[in-house]
């Protein structure tokens, strides 16, 4: 039976990338449980050379980027560009992509779709999250950050469960709504409700471009 290959990038050179990488661990675990071939580039491994080589050798059906980005780029270790809309966008051809990074769905996403990417899920503005500075040594235990990162990672969870890209997007949107509602309507402390504006921001700027019926295969 054909096993899809999943490529996950987890740079870890600053607080933001350390948090994204820590929360990506459960996705890596799930991908392995689901018997996928899982390729993880972590820390210093997340550079253009390794990324290009991994894509060419393994032909992943799903690429999950964790890292920084801007309108035209997603980056790896020390913000080295991995994909640039003007340089190597075709590397994403035939792939399902989820970029947990800032802004890349604004220009890189649409351009990648024009160049044959099946689906590009990402954010058209900065992905903002709130975290507890007392939990910086154990980001995966930071419930505050979890409101954002577990919710955004729902995209990858749903895709790994065999759902379509469109459904994965809906699942993540619903998870955002659920958190927002919980924080606005429950007995949550006022400090929790100060996060709502950022959840609303991320929810509204998360987009699913291209084929809504694609699955990882």
């Amino acid at each position, binding site marked *: 039976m054909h096993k899809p290959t999943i490529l996950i990038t987890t740079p870890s050179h600053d607080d933001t990338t350390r948090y994204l990488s820590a929360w990506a661990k459960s996705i890596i675990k799930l991908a392995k449980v689901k018997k996928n071939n899982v390729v993880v580039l972590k820390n210093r491994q997340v550079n253009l050379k390794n990324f290009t080589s991994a894509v060419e050798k393994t032909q992943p059906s799903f690429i999950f980027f964790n890292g920084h980005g801007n309108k035209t780029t997603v980056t790896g270790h020390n913000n080295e560009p991995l994909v640039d809309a003007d340089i190597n966008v075709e590397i994403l051809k035939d792939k399902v992509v989820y970029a947990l990074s800032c802004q890349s769905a604004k220009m890189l996403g649409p351009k990648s779709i024009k160049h044959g990417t099946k689906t590009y899920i990402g954010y058209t503005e900065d992905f903002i999250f709130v975290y507890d500075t007392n939990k910086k040594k154990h980001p995966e235990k930071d419930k505050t950050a979890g409101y954002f990162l577990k919710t955004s990672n729902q995209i990858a969870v749903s895709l790994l469960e065999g759902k379509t890209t469109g459904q994965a997007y809906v699942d993540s949107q619903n998870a955002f709504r659920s958190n927002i509602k919980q924080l606005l309507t429950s007995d949550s402390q006022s400090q929790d409700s100060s996060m709502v*504006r950022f959840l609303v*921001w991320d929810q509204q700027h998360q987009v699913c471009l291209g084929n809504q019926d694609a699955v990882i295969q």
Partner: protein
Amino acid sequence: MTKNDHIQALVIARLETMPENLAISIGKDGNFNKKDLIKHVKKADAIGKKMVKVELNYLRSLKTITQSAINNA
């Protein structure tokens, strides 16, 4: 007081409710605690303007969010 001054004051008042132990990650722009953010809003620099944009976006969305919460209650 101009309209912008009012908005700035509103955003600062909202940020004041954030507990000291929380910080905000804004991608490559960096990570900021409450005091940092308030300084940026007062300076009206790029980070400060981003905070204003987030707050205004939230306020504009409140009606829809509230309606959605009521419908799904």
